């Protein structure tokens, strides 16, 4: 795999809308050409060359391209939007909407990630070693079809409304998530260590949520249906058809 390193020099106050930072935009290009690629900031555009110190090599096709971003990228939005292959490694924190509409490939965040990561993603993999924000793997604003495929893994904690309207794919959170995990969920799978506030699986009608915490209070709109493999099983949301499955460790 060819590695291209983008080292952050200085990010403007207005932040960046960097949907152009993804492997398929960098392949078969020289460093000079990559420096000329534009990203939006505020009401204008600036080149990558003025933000990053760029070094390394580019590959011939996207699946062999690895992008490493060094420094604090928490003001950069939309990295890897709709990316179709390759790998992005972020050494620090990252801003909102990482890997939105992602199709395939891999994104690794060594720091913390912001809100809306993996929104409406179709495939690929996102790994966050720190904490993640709200609306992870959910739908974009206005629709109720969330994440359709792929995997998201968070080592730390996550925010609220994880997997809103999720239809497929898999989300794993080792730490604690905030309220409304898997609301309007219709498919896919969420595994979460614990939840801060309840209202888990609100309006869910399909899919599966597992909770590792034994002290978890199952909300009233779930009904117990049995137990299997060390997990108590509940179906819900009962105000809908109750096709969703909630598992709580015994």
């Amino acid at each position: 795999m060819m590695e291209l390193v983008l080292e952050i020099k200085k990010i403007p106050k207005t932040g960046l809308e960097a949907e152009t930072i993804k492997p398929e935009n960098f392949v078969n290009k020289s460093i000079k050409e990559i420096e000329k690629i534009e990203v939006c900031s505020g009401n204008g555009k600036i080149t990558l060359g003025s933000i990053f110190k760029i070094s390394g090599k580019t590959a011939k096709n996207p699946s062999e391209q690895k992008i490493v971003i060094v420094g604090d990228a928490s003001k950069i939005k939309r990295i890897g939007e709709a990316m179709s292959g390759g790998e992005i490694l972020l050494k620090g924190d990252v801003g909102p909407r990482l890997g939105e509409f992602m199709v395939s490939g891999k994104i690794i965040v060594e720091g913390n990630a912001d809100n809306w990561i993996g929104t409406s993603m179709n495939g690929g993999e996102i790994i966050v070693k720190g904490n993640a924000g709200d609306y992870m793997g959910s739908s974009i604003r206005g629709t109720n079809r969330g994440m359709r495929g792929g995997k998201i893994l968070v080592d730390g904690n996550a925010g609220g409304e994880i997997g809103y309207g999720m239809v497929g794919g898999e989300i794993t959170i080792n730490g604690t998530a905030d309220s409304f995990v898997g609301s309007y969920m219709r498919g896919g799978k969420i595994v979460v260590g614990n939840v801060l506030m309840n209202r888990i699986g609100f309006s869910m009608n399909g899919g599966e949520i597992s909770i590792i915490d034994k002290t978890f209070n199952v909300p009233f709109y779930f009904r117990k249906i049995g137990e299997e493999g060390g997990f108590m099983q509940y179906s819900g949301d009962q105000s809908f058809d109750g096709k969703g499955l909630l598992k709580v460790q015994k």
Partner: protein
Amino acid sequence: MSIHIKNATVYDPVNKIDGEVMDVLVENGRIVTKLDTTPQIIDAKGKVLMSGGVDIHTHIAGPAINAGRLLRPEDKTIFLESKNGLHSGSGFSMPSTFMTGYAYALMGYSFLVEPAVPPIKAKHTHDELSDTPLVDKAALLLLGNNYLVAKNIADGNHDKLRDYVAWMLATTKTYGIKLVSPGAYLSWLWGKNKTKPKDAIPKFDITPSDIIAGLEDAAIKLKLPHPIHVHLNGMGYYGNYVSSLDEMKLPKERMHIAHLQYNSYGGDSWKNFESKADEIIKEVNKNAKLTFDVGQVTLDNTTTLTADSPFEQYLSQLTHQKWSSRDVELENGSGIVPYPYSGKNSVNAVQWAIGLELVLMAKDLSKVCLSTDHPNAGPFIRYPRIISWLMSKKVREKFANGLNESVLKRSSINSINRELTLYEIATITRSAPARILGIKYDGIKPGADANIAIYTPDDDKEKMFSAAEYVIFNGEVVVKNKNVVRSINGKTLHASMETKNPELERELQTFFRRYYSVGISNYVVS
């Protein structure tokens, strides 16, 4: 500034020019016979020249479309970047105002009609219309469910109704009268739905037919250039063609029917939904009082928005989509529901066929206007695609074969061999709507306004009409090489009315104080 267009192939039904090669000279915003200054030369050899397009029914401004923009953030994933000093914009089925103006200009349009303005929201509508560049505009006033209109008709005060309509048109600076399911909203307020033309409206001793007759009478007395613009009762329901036929026999002189496709449905459930375009078009062909626009379904993920709130309630329950419903005090209601049309859906596929059948089976195309009832049946940017379906049997057959098989069983689209010519396309997009609207529109002849579109001919008609090579608006080149190069503002037309009925104005003062949320001085558009 002057322009000399050389050797263009002109199609202009207004002046009966069918594919004649000629030069067109433009100076000071008009087409002229000779130029006084050194012109900019446009070589249009082998290119097709038409006058500016006219869209008779397109929801581009006002409170409903704006509420739709708020309701559907997901519609905004399409962006237009700012360049050449133009505005940026976003939106697919409901683009922002500037983007709307640019997109219409790029297709060669120069006149748009916003067909549904609730009187109290006229200020908002004019605000948005003034931000829609590169086109001239007009707006129609919603009066079909207005309390005072219904009351005057119920009391038999036809002179007072005429004066009230005149006052309303002058006050709101609008161009004509629009009726949306007359009486249906008034009935819905009392829990009734699917109002038919002969159903009594609660609390008023009248029927929708009386409202149509009353407002047509007012339009005739006021000598309005555009006849009443009617969205028939029962729009969108299966089996509505029977009541549509009843309603189509009502007018005394003239009536324009909006998006007729939505009123040509047979069947007694969604399962056996079928096309009744043949019955409907038979009536249109023999009744000289009727004109219509199509409301062609384009099978896109679009937004339905109409002042027919009862139907939107029904649609949201049918599709489980999000729904916004509004009551506009004493005047009307409105509803908004997103609707993803799909060719795999048996009903949507037949709806697609009905619009095309209506155009292709019409005997006299000067009664027919092309529209998608933007954004209800599809966004206006799909007009080129509709033209490609109308101009080639092969193209529409190929498309129909990719749809749900119901389209072949429950419509006769594949048995129609007619293919429209460029002259006929110019008729349904230019001369017919202009004549029905009664605007000053002289086509391509000396003295006419210089609104001109020049297209590069292509076998792929969608490609040909998607972007004009050159567009001239008010005598200025605004589109060059398929790019919008500059933005100028058009004018907004309104009916010029004189109101002299002091008694009515005194009464309205009291009425506003008692029942409206605004005073009369805040109601007037100035």
